[in-house]
């Protein structure tokens, strides 16, 4: 094979690779749009009026996840299943976003931490790589951390809206999350950097709880901070 032939072959390969990535990008754009819609919907719970509407908002969000499942189903068809990590960078951001949104919905519904399997089910994808398009554990964890920031904001806004017990529950939740994360041996990668932000969320929520308790505003039995 001559030099020219060799480079011709390589060029063919690179060109095909670019085409696949173009296809993937188009589907990911659609996913990002849907993710924005779900986010806009859920952001409204921060409004004073929004707290009462939590059940209806999370129900509506669940409906929007139907579109997500369809779009992810389409994404799966754009590349060979065993090359997930070759193209992973294209959807990593939006998948983390979707994991966050799924975790947030479940939190609003149940005030508990969604398990990875449930997130995968909401998104219509697998948990294990061998079974197909899956949710990488680091993407799940990144989504959880994004939610932690959202909850620190929710703690602040629930006080403003007059709900003085929610911050205490959020505080317990975040502290347990923090304990969990401290078990992980993280390398100096993006997940580690994101985890470093968790302590600020913890601190912010602690301050909210402190503000409530010194003023005697939190009087629920068993949830008292002092």
């Amino acid at each position: 094979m001559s030099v020219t032939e060799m480079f011709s072959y390589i060029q063919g390969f690179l060109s095909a690779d670019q085409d696949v990535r173009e296809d993937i990008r188009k589907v990911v754009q659609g996913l990002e749009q849907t993710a924005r819609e779900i986010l806009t919907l859920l952001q409204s719970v921060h409004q004073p009026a929004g707290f009462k509407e939590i059940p209806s908002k999370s129900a509506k969000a669940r409906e929007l996840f139907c579109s997500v499942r369809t779009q992810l189903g389409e994404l799966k068809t754009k590349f060979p299943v065993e090359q997930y990590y070759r193209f992973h960078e294209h959807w990593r951001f939006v998948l983390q976003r979707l994991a966050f949104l799924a975790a947030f919905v479940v939190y609003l519904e149940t005030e508990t931490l969604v398990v990875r399997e449930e997130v995968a089910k909401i998104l219509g994808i697998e948990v294990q790589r061998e079974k197909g398009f899956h949710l990488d554990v680091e993407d799940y964890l990144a989504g959880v951390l994004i939610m932690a920031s959202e909850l620190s904001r929710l703690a602040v806004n629930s006080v403003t809206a007059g709900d003085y017990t929610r911050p205490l529950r959020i505080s317990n939740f975040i502290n347990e999350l923090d304990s969990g994360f401290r078990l992980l041996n993280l390398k100096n990668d993006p997940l580690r950097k994101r985890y470093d932000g968790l302590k600020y969320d913890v601190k912010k929520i602690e301050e909210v709880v402190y503000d409530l308790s010194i003023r005697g505003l939190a009087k629920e039995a068993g949830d008292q901070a002092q």
Partner: protein
Amino acid sequence: MTTTRMPVVKKTSEGCPRRNADAAQESSSPVIAAFKVFQQELDTKHDKHERLVKISRDVTIESKRTIFLLHRVTSVPNADNILKEAEVKLDAVRQKIGQIAEELRGEDIFQFHRAFTAGIQEYVEAVSFLHYIRDRSLISLEEINASLVFMRAEKVEPTGLAEAPQTGGQVLTFQVTPSDYLLGIADLTGELMRMCISSVGNGDIDTPFQLSQFLRQIHDGFSFIGNTGPYEVSKKLHTLRQSLGKVEDACYALRVRGSEIPKHMLADVFSSRTTLPEPEEGIV
């Protein structure tokens, strides 16, 4: 885990939330249990990554040593010994790549690509250098991958029988990606440029012209690919142009002044691309 939720353990004791969370940890709540699983998963992945990095480092070192060895062919009369020794070294490197293939068995190779890409590029550089010296041609990706086939015994209990490899043998391959191949070849051009300069210094006036033609073809190939390749290629293209320039200048100088400059001074002529000494009067 079949449940969809992990209840926060309700506190019955007083105390700050932090202390209660620690109590939750001690009582091994579902959240903590889940994170212990994540810890194991992440540790396993990181450990494999580290093992691959170590093997890749060995591949890099041995490949570089092979390249240094191969440069000596221009200065010795009998190149065959060097070529044989280089072949032996590269066989050892291939065994290391076999270990990489072993680690990647059952994995998505792209998940760990960053761990071993540097070593593989260095190997491509070394093996293509050897191939050029022997063959005066560019080794193809197919040829490289054809030699990265390994026989492994299946992962079953050892039978201790001599014919076990036939019944339980498994073929393991490592496929160099077109992208890694491209980057290795880009680095090869630097070595070819060095070989050109040193061959001139040793009085070999044929090699520079062959190299010039070969390098030009490779450079044209890279220009054809442009920036549709991995972004590192664009960076290496700049170096490639410089290498090609040096080689073309060497050929020019040889053509113009080869008859008038003693061989042992030719090397000095090409040490700098921009400066050329004045021809000395009266030198044969």
